[in-house]
């Protein structure tokens, strides 16, 4: 096991699995992860989640293996980019989606998306797993292998408490 905080180990794992381009819109559930990406100067903060997906698509065209960080509220914003860019053009991207509204316990604005997020990902044909404190390494590697094989987006959802 690598030394350091969960966020540091997670970023190490992402890099070890080949991810080398990071963009996104922040969420408090991954603030330590974003701080670590920023510290390593690996992260482009974007204005909207679909713009982040656009930048990630460009990076993939240029040979990078991208990941986009977003809150699940941004998944709604992302659907047209996922449908008419990534899935249509076979452009893979790791989606790191925080799970606000997890188990129905959150501020009201997160409850509708929180309840539907896994089904929404499934509906769009995006394979997904929910990260847990044990097994993160395997889940990241699963996503990396799946991305390369299918050339489609894959999502890892991040429940509260994991990186806080």
């Amino acid at each position, binding site marked *: 096991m690598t030394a350091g905080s969960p966020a540091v180990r997670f970023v190490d794992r992402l890099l070890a699995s080949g991810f080398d381009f990071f963009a996104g819109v922040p969420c408090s559930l991954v603030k330590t992860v974003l701080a670590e990406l920023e510290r390593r100067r690996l992260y482009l903060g974007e204005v909207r989640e*679909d*713009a982040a997906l*656009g930048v990630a698509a*460009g*990076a993939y065209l*240029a040979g990078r293996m991208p990941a986009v960080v977003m809150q699940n509220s941004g998944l709604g914003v992302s659907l*047209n980019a996922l449908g008419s860019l990534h899935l249509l*053009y076979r452009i893979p991207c790791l989606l790191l989606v925080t799970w606000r509204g997890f188990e129905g316990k959150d501020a009201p604005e997160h409850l509708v998306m929180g309840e539907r997020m896994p089904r929404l990902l499934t509906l769009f044909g995006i394979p997904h797993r929910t990260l847990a404190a044990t097994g993160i390494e395997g889940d990241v590697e699963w996503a990396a292998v799946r991305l390369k094989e299918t050339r489609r987006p894959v999502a890892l959802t991040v429940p509260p408490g994991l990186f806080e």
Partner: protein
Amino acid sequence: MTLGEALAVIAPLVPEGTVSIHANGYIGRAGCAARDRDESFYMIGSMGLASSIGLGVALAQPRRRVLVLDGDGNVLMNLGALATIAAAAPPNFLHVCFDNGAHASTGAQPTVSDRVRLDEVARAAGYRSVSRVESREALLAEARTFLAGEGPAFLLVRVALGPAGPPAPRIPHTPEEMTARMRRALGAAR
């Protein structure tokens, strides 16, 4: 000057090796008809995102020049991208906006670009250089300088709406083929 006439001026002047990212709608169709290269990418959906895709290529390959061929409707849909591009300030990023003041491919519904000058928005966002041309002669005079210049640079090309109907056939390549040929051209593995 129509969109087709403007692209007929710019396309032959684009240096070999430059990546061209075309916005959706008529811009990609006219751009493909004017000059098609392996380094040309035609977005057929994801309206607004051509500038973001171009930024991703420019950041990932800083030695390669990237030309985004955008429209007023697309720029307005992803206006925040102008801020991200200006802040990231990639010197290899060139941004053309063909401004006909309308969503031409959906029936010419007007945009607000007749009242909101998108070149001034790009200037305010902080693009290194911004220019605007309104005639074919002015575009001929400006295009070489723009294509050879340092980015992020924004060139607004005012074009007339029309003629009615599509300017060229649909893109002949499948989306998947476009991804594969661009990655080959940029030296990426499958």
